[in-house]
C-alpha cells in the first residue's frame, strides 16, 4: 500500500539565488527515486520542501492526493534519514527508534514490538540499549534508518545518508538500504551527489542542475541517452567533441571535427560519420562519447582518430588511456590487459561506433 508523490511547479528562492526554478515531478508508488546533482543544484532544498523544513515560494506537493505543503513538518508522517543521522545523543538506540511512536502516543507494549521489529529490519537488535555515541558510522546510519521506518511513514526521505561513511562501507550500506526498501516496498526519495550511487540504487533518477530537472529516467536510459550535455558530463565519464555538419546523405551525416578552442597545433581534416537524425548541413554539434565506446583500430577503419597516448592507468578490470588527438584529449577505457607495446608516446588510432554517440545540437552563434 505504498503511495506516490506529486510535485508541481515548485519554486524557492534564497535571496538572489534561485534554489528551485519550477520543478515538476511524479514519483510512483513503491519506487526508489533519486535526485542527483552537484552541490548547490537544489536537490536538498527539494527534499527539505517535501519534508516541510523549507517552505516553497510557489508550487504544490501532494502525496496520494493529499496536499502536503500546508502541513507543518510534524504532521506529514514522512520518515527522514539525515546526512549526519541526527541521532538524539541523550537517548539510547531503543529510545531513538521509539521516539516517533511516543510522539504519536502509541501504547507502550506496541511501541516495544514496533521498535524491536524496526531494529531487526536493519539487523541491529543487539545494540538496542547502546547510546549513539558508541556506535560505528554504519550502525548509526542503520539506527537512523530504523528510526525513520518505525513510524511507518508514507514516504522515506534520505538526504545523502551514506556520505559520511568510508568507501567500502558505503557500498555495503547501499545494498542494505536497497534490501530494506525492496522488502517494505516503501516509496523512497533519495538525495545524493554521487552519480554512481544513484545509478546503483535507483529505479529512476532525476538529474538536477541550477534548480532545474535536467532529465528523469531509469539509470540505463540516463547513462545511454543523456538528454543534455550536463547530464552526459555529470553521469559517468564522457568525452565531448565539437564539429560542424558538412553533408547529410542516406541517413548518414558527415561531421568535421574541430580542434578545441585552446589548441594551437594545426590539425588535419578530421571527418566522422554519424547517424543523421534531424541534422542539417551547417549545424554545429557537440558529440558525447563514453570512454568504453572507443577501441583501438588501424588507420583505415571508418571513424578513426589518429592520436598519441599521453598516459596509461591500469585500474584492474579496465585500463584507462588518455589519448591526445586533433579534436582534443580523449579518455578511453579498454577492458582487460591491452598487452605490451603501449606506452606514453605510442601513436594509435581510435575508433567508435557512430550509433553510440549522443549528439547535441549547438546554437548557431558561438
Amino acid at each position: 500500500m505504498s503511495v506516490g508523490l506529486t510535485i508541481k511547479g515548485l519554486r524557492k528562492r534564497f535571496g538572489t539565488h534561485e534554489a528551485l526554478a519550477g520543478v515538476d515531478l511524479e514519483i510512483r508508488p513503491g519506487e526508489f527515486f533519486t535526485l542527483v546533482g552537484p552541490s548547490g543544484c537544489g536537490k536538498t532544498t527539494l527534499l527539505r520542501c517535501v519534508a516541510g523544513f523549507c517552505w516553497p515560494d510557489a508550487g504544490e506537493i501532494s502525496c496520494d492526493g493529499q496536499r502536503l505543503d500546508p502541513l507543518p513538518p510534524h504532521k506529514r508522517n514522512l520518515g527522514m534519514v539525515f546526512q549526519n543521522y541526527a541521532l538524539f545523543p541523550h537517548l539510547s538506540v531503543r529510545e531513538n527508534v521509539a521516539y516517533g511512536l511516543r510522539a504519536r502516543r502509541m501504547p507502550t507494549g506496541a511501541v516495544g514490538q514496533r521498535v524491536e521489529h524496526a531494529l531487526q529490519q536493519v539487523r541491529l537488535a543487539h545494540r538496542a540499549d547502546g547510546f549513539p555515541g558508541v556506535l560505528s558510522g554504519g550502525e548509526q546510519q542503520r539506527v537512523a534508518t530504523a528510526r525513520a521506518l518505525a513510524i511507518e511513514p508514507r514516504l522515506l526521505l534520505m538526504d545523502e545518508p551514506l556520505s559520511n561513511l568510508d568507501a567500502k562501507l558505503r557500498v555495503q550500506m547501499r545494498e542494505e538500504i536497497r534490501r530494506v526498501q525492496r522488502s517494505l516496498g516503501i516509496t523512497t526519495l533519495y538525495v545524493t551527489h554521487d552519480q554512481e550511487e544513484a545509478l546503483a540504487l535507483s529505479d529512476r533518477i532525476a538529474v538536477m542542475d541550477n534548480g532545474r530537472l535536467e532529465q528523469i529516467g531509469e539509470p540505463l536510459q540516463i547513462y545511454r541517452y543523456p538528454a543534455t550535455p550536463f547530464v552526459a558530463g555529470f553521469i559517468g565519464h564522457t568525452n565531448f567533441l565539437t564539429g560542424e555538419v558538412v553533408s547529410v546523405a542516406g541517413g548518414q551525416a558527415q561531421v568535421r571535427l574541430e580542434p578545441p578552442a585552446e589548441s594551437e597545433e594545426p590539425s588535419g581534416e578530421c571527418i566522422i560519420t554519424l547517424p543523421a537524425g534531424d541534422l542539417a548541413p551547417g549545424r554545429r554539434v557537440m558529440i558525447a562519447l563514453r570512454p568504453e565506446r572507443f577501441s583501438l583500430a588501424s588507420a583505415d577503419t571508418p571513424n578513426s582518430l589518429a592520436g598519441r597516448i599521453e598516459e596509461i592507468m591500469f585500474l584492474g578490470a579496465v585500463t584507462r588511456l588518455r589519448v591526445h588527438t586533433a579534436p582534443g584529449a580523449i579518455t578511453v577505457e579498454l577492458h582487460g590487459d591491452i598487452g605490451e607495446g603501449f606506452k606514453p608516446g605510442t601513436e594509435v588510432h581510435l575508433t567508435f561506433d557512430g550509433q553510440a554517440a549522443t549528439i547535441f545540437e549547438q546554437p548557431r552563434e558561438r
Partner: protein
Amino acid sequence: MKRPRRSSDPWHAALALSYALLALLIAYPLVRLFAGSLTAEGGGFSLAHFRDFLALRYYRAALEHSLYVGVMVTLLATVIGVVLATAVTRWGVPGKALLRALVVIPLVSPPFIGAYSWILLLGRNGWITNLLDRFHAAGWIGTIYGPKGIILALTLNLYPFVFLMVCASLSSVDPNLEEAAANLGATPWRRFRTVTMPLLTPGILGGALLVFLHTVADFGSAMIIGEDYLVLPTLIYSLFINEMGGEPAMAATASAVLLACTTIVLLVERWYLARRSYVMSGLRREGEREVSRRLRALATILAYGIVGLSLIPSVVVIVTSFFPSSGPIMRPGFSLGNYAAVFQSVPRPMLNSVFLSLVSTILCVLLGVVIGYLLVRRQSRWTAGLDALLMVPFAIPGTVLAVALITAFGARPLLLTGTVAILIVSYVIRRMPYAVRGVAAILHHIEPATEEASVSLGASPWRTFRKITLPLMAPGIVSGAVMTWVQVISEISSTILLYYGQWATMSVVIYQQVMSDNFGSAAATSTLLLAGVFVPLLLFNVWQGGRAAELV
C-alpha cells in the same frame, strides 16, 4: 528551521518581550544615568559636571588611581597567568588537573575576603607584621593599605582568568604547527614569536581584558584595604552615601567616566580580535614538550608557589574563623564562639543571600534559555539588536549599574528603589548575559538536524523543544546556574548601594564587620559565604567529572 509566518508563533512574543525587558532594564537606566550627568544644577544641558570632574584633584585622582591599579593588576596577572599556563601545559608540571581545579578557588572567592585576609596577615596588627616587628623588620614591607594592598589582593584573585584562557588557547594550538615551523628552519624563539604567540593572543587578550574589567569595577577590596586611596567605585559610593546628603549628579558623572573606561577597553579588544582570524584546523592537541629535568622542577615549584600564594586568603579566613576573638584581636586556639555570635546576630542576612541568589539564578536561567534559543535558532535581523543589547552589561561595573538603577527607578510610576526587586534586577541584568552566552554556545553544538529529525518523526515543535533541545542543553543550563549562583551570592559592589533595611546580604555584613573591626565574626561569616560558593561548585565538579574550571 524555516517555518511559515504565523502570528501565533510564541517565539515572536518572546522576542518582543525580551526587547521590552532589556530596553527597560538596561538601556533606559543608562540613558537616565547619562542624562543625570549632563544636567546642570538648575536643569538644562551642561558639561559642568564633567569639567569639575577633570578639574578637581579629588575626582581626577580617583580616575588616575583606577587606571593605575587596573594597568598594574592586568600586567601582573597576565605575566603570572601566561607563565603558569605555559609551565602547566608545556613543561610537564605534575598534577595538571589539580592545579586547574585549585585556581578556581581564588577566582570565585570574593575579592573583599582576599583583601580582608591580607589585612589579617600584613595589616597594622597582622600576624606577619607582628612577627617581623619582633625582628624590627616591619619596615621592609611598608604599609599594605592603599594601592599596594589592592594590587596584591586583586592580582592573586584574578590571574586565573589569564591562566585558564591561555591554557585553553595553548591546548588548541596544534603542536604540528610548531613542528612545521621547526621543520622549516625556525629557531625555538622564532617559533614562539611567529607561531605560538600570535595564536595565543586571543586567549591572553581575553584574559587580560577580564582582569582589567574586574579590577576597575572592584569595590570591595578597594574599600577594605584601600582606606583613603579612592578609586572610581569607592568614589561613587562615597559621593552617593554621603553624610552631607550625597551628590547624585557627581556620582552619575563618575559612573559615566568609569563606564567609558570599561567600554573603551572592551571595544578596543573586540576591534583588535576582529581583524585577525585564528581558525585552527589541526587535529592533534595539547603537546607536552621534552624539557630538561631542571626546568620541570623549577616550573613545578613556581606553579605550586603561585597557586599556593593565591590560596592563602581563603585558608587564613577559614582557619581564623575558629580562633577565639574579641574585636580585632584574634588568638590561636579553637572556638566556635565566632559562629555562635554570627548565628545569633545575623541569621537574616544568610537567608537573604540564599533567597536572592536562588531567585536571581532561576530568572537568569529562564531568560538565558529563552533569549539564547532566540539568538541561535531564530536568528534574524531582529535578534541582532538583542545580541548587541546583551553586550552592554559586560561593560557595566556593579557600582555604575546601582547608580543607574537608582536614578531610573527612584520615583513613581517605576519605583523600585528601596524594594527587594531592585536587588534582583541588578543581579539578573549583570549575570543574564553569561547565562545567554552559555546556552547559545551549547545550542551551536546541537545540530539543527537533531531537532528536525524529531519534528519529522511527528513531534510538535513544543514537544521537540522539551524532549530534545532542553535535555541536550541541560549541562549548559546547570553550569550557567552554578555560575550565576556563585557570582550573585558574593556580590557586593551594587548590593551595598541598593540594599535597604533588613535586606543586607552576607557580603554586606562582612564588609560592615571588617569596618567595625569585628574580625572574628567577619571570618566566620566569610567562611560561611565561601561554603555557599564552594559547595555548589564542588557538587557540579563531582557531577561533571572535574569540569568546574570550564565554568569561568
